[in-house]
């Protein structure tokens, strides 16, 4: 895994590199380097010592990677992560959500290169801002790009979400009452059971919200002022992707951050044997 950071307009420099390899049958950090403003921390022990996993925490000086401050001179805060995942290996990228403050501009790009038997879990999510201060989707720009390539640069998953204030429609109007959006990618043969469980449960959860249309369907256009069932507080959909559906992507919108933490805790719990702890536990 290598991390890169830098401000637009300046020369991009690698500010961090880490490598994890099997040494003597155990996953070991064979390389770890970071320099300001990035810091990579490798705690000695996270979770059970029986688990063969390495945890790497990333920190950014200046308030943490997850908080993005006001943009100065329309510079954009930019983060780039590039990772190569080997055969039969697993990388889980499980951060806290990004919170962009009012007028912030933030851009991140994550590129993953995998083999057909590599495994990958990516959580990428953002909240609407500092709720306490009444900030709701008030940042200027947020862009998050996630790309996964198979051997020989074959594109497997190319996604880019762009939220920008626009004259026709503000981000807040677009997001309505939802304060969090999240994306979870689960990829690889080792995670088939996790994929199947997520797909089944999301389908069950969402099916409850879809009412059967009545013969008087035309009437609901007139009764919008009447109270009735409201929109789901958490709405999600799940899609398979890739040859032989090797991957699954879940997209979520929720009113509260806590409900998404619960969702992630629940669905990623089956990763405990691989990671040593329950993510977001």
């Amino acid at each position, binding site marked *: 895994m290598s991390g890169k950071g830098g401000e637009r307009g300046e020369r991009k420099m690698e500010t961090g590199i880490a490598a994890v390899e099997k040494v003597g049958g155990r996953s070991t950090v064979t390389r770890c380097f970071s320099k300001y403003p990035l810091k990579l921390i490798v705690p000695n022990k996270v979770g059970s010592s029986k688990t063969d996993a390495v945890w790497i925490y990333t920190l950014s000086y200046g308030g943490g990677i997850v908080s993005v401050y006001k943009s100065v001179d329309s510079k954009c805060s930019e983060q780039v992560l590039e990772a190569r995942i080997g055969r039969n290996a697993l990388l889980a990228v499980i951060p806290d959500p990004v919170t962009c403050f009012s007028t912030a501009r933030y851009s991140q790009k994550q590129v993953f290169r995998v083999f057909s038997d590599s495994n990958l879990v990516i959580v990428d999510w953002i909240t609407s801002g500092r709720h306490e201060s009444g900030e709701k989707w008030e940042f200027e720009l947020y*862009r998050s*790009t996630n790309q996964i390539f198979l051997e020989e640069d074959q*594109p*497997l*998953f*190319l*996604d*880019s*979400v*762009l*939220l*920008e204030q*626009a004259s*026709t*429609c503000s981000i807040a*109007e*677009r*997001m*309505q009452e*939802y304060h969090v*959006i999240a994306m979870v990618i689960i990829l690889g043969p080792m995670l088939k059971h996790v994929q199947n469980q997520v797909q089944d449960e999301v*389908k069950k959860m*969402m*099916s409850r*919200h*879809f*009412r*059967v*249309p009545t013969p008087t*369907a*035309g009437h*609901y*256009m007139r*009764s*919008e002022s009447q109270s*009735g*069932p*409201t*929109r*789901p507080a958490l*709405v*999600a*959909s*799940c*899609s*398979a*992707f890739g040859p032989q559906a090797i991957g699954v*992507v879940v*997209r*979520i*919108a929720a009113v509260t951050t806590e409900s998404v933490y619960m969702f992630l805790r629940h669905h990623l719990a089956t990763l405990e044997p691989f990671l040593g702890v329950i993510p977001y536990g």
Partner: protein
Amino acid sequence: MSEQTQNCLMDCDMEEMSADNVKTSPADHLQQWSQWQLLDSILPTGGFAHSSGLEAAVQARFVVGPEDLKFYIIQVLENTGSLLLPYVYCASKFPDVESWFKLDRLLEATLTNEVSRKASASQGSALLRVAASIYVEIPSLKQMRDTYLGSGAASFHHAPIFGLICGLLGFDSSTSQRAYMFITMRDVVSAATRLNLIGPLGASVLQHQIAHVAEQMTKKWMDRPVEEASQTSPLVDIVQGCHGYLFSRLFCS
């Protein structure tokens, strides 16, 4: 009339004819017939089977009134502009099979929403089949279809196919992109009438009301490289992805 005056008058006539030709030649006139046919909803491409997530949006109560409907359609147009217009642009600018195939593979990886991915492939395949039959003066359409259909190597996604056909028919890339936005709007509005959200006359009024917004979106998102393709309406994407969870449905997506 003197011979001089006669010649002068003849020259004037010739100039007028040339001026007319510069504006619209017979070739341009013929092109308009092909253009209108391509954008006509009567073309049997199966566009009527897709609602761009509107059916799911209605059932999940994201669209309950006329203002919601208008807002939803605008969101769909914005997302179409930001995500798909680059593909129409590039395919129409480089309307050759090799470029098309690369775009098709890229879009396959970009349409991560399974519902919209399948809808795109289904509509694109139907459009190619129809275009190959109609535009026999462009043999490459049929050749390309024959080559890639059996192998399963291509998905025949809608936006690149649409751009390719426009390019091969001689439309400029600006018209091609505007046309793609038009047919997207056309199909969502049509779906709204069939979902009983709005009557046919009301739908036509709405379509004209939103036209200037659609034009704004087209201008905003046109002429971009595919590397910039992104989605700008996450809620629309999520709701569209829920189509498979609907208890009963009229549409495929």
